[in-house]
């Protein structure tokens, strides 16, 4: 619920993202802290794909490439079989707990879709109040009106097989590193 104006966008985002079955971890926006968080989350996985970043300071996403088992330039077959995709978020949406990924930068589309675990790095200052805000030309440089976007709300899900099942064609788990 976004009704209480005294709650910060970050708090609202946290509540709603968790309601949507995403996991969220608050992390200091430093290379060391991000590396530590990624290391914990990807412990034991065999293959990781890291997409190119656009908005975060380059050193932050580049630490992801230092993780063990990162495939530096994956073939399509490796992409299809990888365990973890790491991307940056273009924005976060408080009211729905969504992250919004802008496609275009190398490996972003694949790393946000094909692997069972999608880890996304979201800068807290890029959280907007409602989905529609990204259609405002003044918001985040107006890129929301230009780019290929996907609003991602929790892991992929279906109700077609009877009860709600999380983890269908898209990622089974969405882990958000909220950088503050």
């Amino acid at each position, binding site marked *: *619920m*976004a*009704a209480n104006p005294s709650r910060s966008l970050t708090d609202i985002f946290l509540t*709603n993202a968790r309601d*949507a079955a995403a996991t969220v971890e608050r992390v200091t926006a430093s290379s060391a802290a991000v590396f530590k968080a990624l290391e914990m989350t990807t412990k034991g996985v065999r293959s990781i794909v890291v997409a190119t970043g656009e908005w975060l300071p380059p050193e932050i996403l580049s630490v992801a490439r230092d993780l063990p088992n990162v495939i530096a330039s994956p073939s*399509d*077959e490796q*992409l*299809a079989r990888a365990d973890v995709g790491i991307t940056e978020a273009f924005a976060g*949406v408080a*009211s*729905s*707990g*969504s992250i919004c990924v802008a*496609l*275009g930068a*190398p490996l*972003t*589309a*694949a790393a946000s*879709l*094909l692997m069972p675990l999608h880890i996304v790095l979201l800068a807290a200052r890029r959280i907007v109040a*409602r*989905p*529609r805000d990204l*259609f*405002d*030309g003044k918001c985040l440089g107006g890129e929301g*009106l230009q780019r*290929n*976007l*996907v*609003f*991602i*709300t*929790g*892991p*992929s*899900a*279906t*109700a*077609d*097989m*009877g*009860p*709600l*099942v999380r*983890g*269908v*064609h*898209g*990622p089974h788990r969405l882990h958000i590193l909220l950088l503050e």
Partner: protein
Amino acid sequence: MASSKSQSAQSGSPREVANKSDQGNLLRAIRMALEVQSATIRFNTQDHNRGRYSATEALPDYDALKDRARKTKEQAIAHLPDLARELEAVVRGRGGHLFVAANAEDACRYILGVCEEHAAKLVVKGKSITSEEIRLNHALEAAGIEVAESDLAEFILQIADEQPSHIVAPAIHYSRERITALFKRKFQTDLPLDTGEELTKFARQRLREKFLRADIGVTGANLIAADTGTLMLVESEGNIRMSSFLPPVHIAIAGVEKIIAARRDMAPFLELLAASGTGQKLTSYTSFLNPPLDDPPFAMPGKPRKTREFHLVLIDNGRLRMREDPVLREALYCIRCSACLNACANFQAVGGHAFGGETYSGGMGGAWEAGTAKLENARFSELCTGCSRCVTACPVLIDIPWLNENLRERLNHTDGPSAISGFLGAISSAAEKDTHIPAAKIFFGNFHFFAKWGVRLAPFSNAMAGKKFARIIMERSLGIDRRRALPAFSRRTLVQAARELDSRAGQQREKKAVLFADVYTNYGLPERGLAALHTLRALSVDVVVSESIPEGRAALSQGMIATAKKQAGRSVKALESYLTAGRDIIVIEPSALAMFRRDYRHLLDDKDQFERLLMRTFEPVEYIVRLLEKSGRRAMEVFDVRRSPVGSRIFFHSHCQQKTIGCAAPTEVLLREIGFDVATSSVECCGMAGSFGYKKDYYDLSMAVGADLLQQVAAAEKDGGPRALIASGTSCTEQLHSGLKRPVQHPLELLAALLKT
């Protein structure tokens, strides 16, 4: 329940009964759905419906969003040819292809051409109901191309060879148990498939390989922006993202009506669609793509890496004709959210295999089948009872019952008269146009006429209603189910009874009103009218009773629009004289009140007349609450719960149309304030819905819908024992009475008994 039974051989498979141009198919489909699918559909649609209520309540500007969405769609349809040209230039400018298909064959031919050009062997598809409309799978498979449906619901339907039963959740009629049985039968597998997770894993593994090998990906589109060529794609499984990203060729199929002017105008739809459809804040994935994408397409080992190609296939297939039709044009505003399906009590009971045609289903389905196939295929729209619960659910403000009443009018004239139509038409006051239609329609549409004679001959007519031979004749000639108890006619009408009351006490008072003697109250339930007079006069209102004029509800519900217009004209003339005399209009029967407050906007030529009625007509309890508020008196000062002849525990069921016009809450609130322990129903409609539950063809469905209401009564009485039954509508009263064999009172009858003076 019956959900794990296999399809009954007797009632046929879903495909066999998909085409509803034959009434027999409609009846077989209802039987099949009630036997096999009902429990699962009910569970799922009611779940979505509850989700919709909470998700739309959480939208702070829900009504404003609906207005914006409506305006965007209206403008888009008005300027459709210009927008299509603009879109074409944008798509071509980006290196894509755009093709406008005049009809289904045209669309399939073009898509087959693209497939041939790429020597495609495997096409992977995201969910697209429009592709069902053009029978794309059939065309591709006939050309030897493998089609992999990747939406899990469509995957189930492809295996089972069934049409969608719902426009958003196409396999909503399948329980987990039936899916397990289907997969085991079709795939001959020993794998464990006994949970949703296992079934999903099984399908995912098969489909992942298809995604990676596919030559072409086909998707639909929820909206398309003309200014940027952006496709809006809403889903939860990730299969649409994969279909548009992995294969080198992406073909998007969409009806031409999906075009809107600008990408920024997509903003209100984003939240509206998710909230209205599945009751979510957003679905798992909502994509906004300007294809072709920048990323290189996937190429697994052994496959050449191609450059990306994008084709947008826009389907006319009758839509431009719908645009010229003032009624069907409304359907082009539809954004396929499915709120009207989930909010519909009849749909909840049978789903889209019965309440639907070969492609489209539910309240909006009739207009779509009529527009893209033919009028006769819309015969299932008979299952729209006009309860109007979809009206407030529709995010683009389509008056769905009005569409269905218009389809009914057209179907009436296609069907033509039966043997006694001329006779019935002549003795009743049906408009000339409405005398050449089936007799049952004329009978139900002129209820007031037959009710008038029922009262004049009351002891005789009521006795006949209980005679077996009379019921057989009525069933054969008019289609009235012999199992349904007929309403007893009062021996004295409200108008007659009111004349004998002393009304002098009502003079010299500041508030003046007229009680509209609606035909249901006047001929059938005059006691609730007398209770209204008694209560209002006790509250110092100078109230008189009008003559009894049919307001047109019965005629409208039978698709006799000419007759309804004639009756609306007569009613408004009579009521305007009361308004001029400074009297507010009080209407007891909610279905009649809803005519004045909602349906007359279509029936009256003078829109000012409609606005005046809208402002000055009141539901009686709503009126009483306003009187109390104005005089500053508390409910308990006027009404004493201790005087209640039925105790203080009650079950209140409000009428469907009463809810739509926002008049249900005052009764509930007032009864609570007085001190009653009030339980309420949460069903959208009781299932009786005027004449619907009397009809032989629909009696079983009506009873199945009513079962939900009866269950809620039972649940409310589980602790603390029985509750007195209180209902506002005539139909609801009959449905509750026939189901529970207990007295049912109108709230006014209860209130009248509680008056302190």
